[in-house]
């Protein structure tokens, strides 16, 4: 029983990062109707950024967020301008399909770049507090991972606040709902797209930064995290960042439970199965509101 609870706690902590990873993807998908399947690679880039900031400057990964987020957001702007700005010229259905393809090429490119620049080895960051744990009623909770969960939740909260209150945050929401109506109110939809994409990428970078604290990264994690983010987005639907966060927690717990039930190697399978079943149950896609 205790072993199960222990695993569930760990799954919950990981799930928070799933939620953050998915939030960026969800935002981009919801606003631009673009499916950036290179999202996992962007998470990887964020992780490497944090790793090198730690290795070269001794910067704590949590503090490094202050640099990593703007850096990856800037990368996002660059990617939008050079790639996805062309994709958004199509109608919705073509757009999703083309963004899938472009994202695929981008993922491949980023992955190959990472392998060349960083080699294929796994990297992680061990801080002094990172290895520490504290006891919660007989269970062991790693401090670093708990902090990561908190930061993830905090970032989602900040993003939510921005979208709810800030002028451009509301403009982004309006664009997500009806971009033509947004145009008619004087909102530069192109700029809203750029902003949303940059924020989404920044969130991905943050997720990568947090992943490197309690876990590890390598160039290969891209596909894995893209799938995780996709699973959560499909599970939670679009529209609420907090809902996405909760979806991430659910996935984390589900994975932990299935690993206990069927063995470690099948951890991935439960998420993929959920994903496929939810997709089947909602063939109208993620925009259909039931």
């Amino acid at each position, binding site marked *: 029983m205790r072993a199960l609870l222990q695993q569930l706690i760990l799954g919950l902590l990981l799930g928070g990062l799933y939620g953050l990873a998915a939030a960026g993807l969800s935002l981009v998908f919801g606003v631009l109707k673009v499916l950036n399947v290179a999202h996992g690679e962007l998470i990887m880039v964020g992780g490497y950024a944090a790793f090198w900031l730690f290795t070269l400057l001794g910067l704590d990964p949590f503090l490094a967020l202050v640099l990593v987020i703007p850096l990856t957001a800037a990368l996002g702007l660059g990617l939008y301008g050079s790639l996805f700005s062309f994709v958004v010229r199509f109608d919705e259905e073509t757009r999703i399909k083309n963004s899938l393809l472009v994202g695929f090429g981008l993922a491949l490119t980023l992955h190959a770049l990472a392998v060349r620049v960083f080699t294929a080895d796994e990297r992680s960051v061990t801080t002094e507090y990172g290895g520490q744990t504290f006891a919660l009623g007989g269970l062991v909770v790693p401090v670093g991972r708990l902090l990561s969960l908190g930061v993830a939740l905090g970032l989602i909260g900040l993003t939510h606040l921005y979208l709810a209150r800030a*002028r451009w945050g*509301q*403009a982004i*929401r*309006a664009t997500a*709902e*009806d971009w*033509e*109506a*947004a*145009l*008619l*109110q*004087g*909102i*530069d*939809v192109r700029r809203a797209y750029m902003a949303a994409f940059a924020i989404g990428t920044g969130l991905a970078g943050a997720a990568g930064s947090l992943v490197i604290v309690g876990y590890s990264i390598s160039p290969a994690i891209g596909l894995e995290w893209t799938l995780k983010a996709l699973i959560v987005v499909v599970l939670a639907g679009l*529209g609420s960042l907090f809902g996405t966060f909760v979806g991430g927690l659910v996935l984390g717990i589900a994975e932990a439970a299935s690993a206990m039930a069927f063995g470690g190697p099948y951890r991935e399978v439960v998420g993929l199965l959920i994903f496929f079943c939810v997709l089947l149950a909602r063939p109208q896609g993620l925009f259909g509101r039931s």
Partner: protein
Amino acid sequence: MLEVRDLHAAYGELRALSGVSLRVAPGEIVALVGSNGAGKTTLLRCIAGLVPARAGLVRWDGEDLAAVRAHRLVERGIAMVPEGRRLFGRMTVEENLRLGAFTPRARAEREATLGRIYETFPRLSERRRQFAGSLSGGEQQMVAIGRALMTRPRLLMLDEPSLGLAPRVVESIFRVFADINRGGVAIFLVEQNVRAALALAHRAYVLEHGRIVGEGRGADVLADPQVRQAYLGPLAIAR
């Protein structure tokens, strides 16, 4: 103020507008009537920059709008209430209205304008924190009109505002149009409810199959027997 000259537009092979010319002067109410598929919505969307023109000219205050991106029309004083309202359903009434004052010029007077809109549409004031998607058709139309007014336009374009609304609601909305106009805002009104539109308008155009087939003062067009037969049905003739 607004000048449309020899406008052509098409959807692929399908010609929607074949040489449309019209104008709207400051302070006027101009109506555009025509049956379904005549091209009325296309014309409005073309002016608003949502649909590219194949040929022809749209001029606002003498400036050719072809080079102006759609979202910049609001700064210049053109606002549109699109067909079907197109509200941001998952945002509240107040958020929808406030978003109308997105541009700097409108933002400067946002609170004052908002206050006036709540005076004009008291029902919206009651429902200000409700999600726009949960309102009735008539209330949504009020929000849409209010949202457009928040941009502080000099020209308000409306695409079928009476669509799906009960007659009493239509009446009250058209009274609001008259009020708005008295405040100095020109109105370009595309309507299928020919009687109400022509009763309100100073001038009117008739659009059929992408061409202007009639023009004149509102009352005159309303009295025209061909118009009456086409749009007001056999009963109208008997009157």
